[in-house]
């Protein structure tokens, strides 16, 4: 959860537009979601890096057609 969202959540609580327990649950869920995002991001980077390594190991001069796209090694 960004700082802005944190601040806005506090604002809603002060203006009596959300309850305290609702705010807490949302903050907990947001924290879990942030953790998940970080994990996913790491996984994506790992896969990206692994794909790049694999691609670099391919013989040079090869033309690979992917749909309308052509990629040369």
């Amino acid at each position: 959860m960004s700082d802005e969202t944190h601040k806005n959540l506090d604002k809603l609580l002060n203006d009596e537009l959300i309850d305290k327990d609702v705010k807490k649950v949302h903050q907990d869920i947001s924290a879990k979601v942030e953790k998940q995002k970080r994990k996913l991001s790491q996984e994506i980077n790992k896969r990206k890096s692994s794909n790049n390594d694999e691609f670099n190991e391919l013989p040079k001069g090869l033309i690979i057609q992917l749909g309308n796209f052509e990629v040369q090694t």
Partner: protein
Amino acid sequence: MDTIQTKITIRKYFLIIAVAIGVVAAMSQLFFDVNSEAVIEVRKEQRSARKDRDAKRVMGMNILNDIHAMNVLPDSLNKKVAELFSEHQIAEKKSEILYSELVNLKNAQKIRNFPNYNSFADAIGNPILILITGILFILLYILRNSIDWKKISKAFIHLGLMYLFVASVYLIWAFSNSLEIHRAYYIVGLIFASIFAAFGLNKLTRYLFNVDFLEKEKYKKIIRLLFRQLLFTIPKKGYVKEDKMIEFTDSNNEVINKVAKEID
């Protein structure tokens, strides 16, 4: 900590002294007699002397009348004495009749124990203002938990100015050299006090009895219910799939930011 404690103590004493001065000033008339002992004494003597003077005057006129009856004065002087006695009798009779009329008229114009409406209005005017103020404070106390004090305080400046105006007129009158101040000052004071009172009460009543205030509370409750459903019930009961949770939460954060922006 000492500075804070000192400030609290100073404020406490200031408040106590201010309230004490206000209450004592309002009731201070009780501590002073209308007339001092010396005034009462001298007034008694003056009344006695006046009664004596009047009696002597009547006696003088009667003696003059007797001298007239004796016919010992020259004709012209005798005539003057007769005329003077007659005029005195007429004037005395007239005075008695008018005095009686005056007493009846004064009694007719009495309002309870006050000689006239002016005195009655003078006595009752300020207590009515204080009574209304008292009722207002009690009302504010009863509604204290639902009042947005910052908003309602906008009325206080106008009401404060109204009180200052009314008090200034009375204090200027009390300390002025003449017993009465020009009617124009009363009217000007009344106009300004009325203007400030109108502004102040308009803001106060608009806030306390406005439908918007009650409607606002209703809408706040509705929004709390909706947020509870969105941010609490749906995720807790697992109505959203795990793989959609990130999108769901991001979307909720967007809603939170948008709502917060709207209430700015």
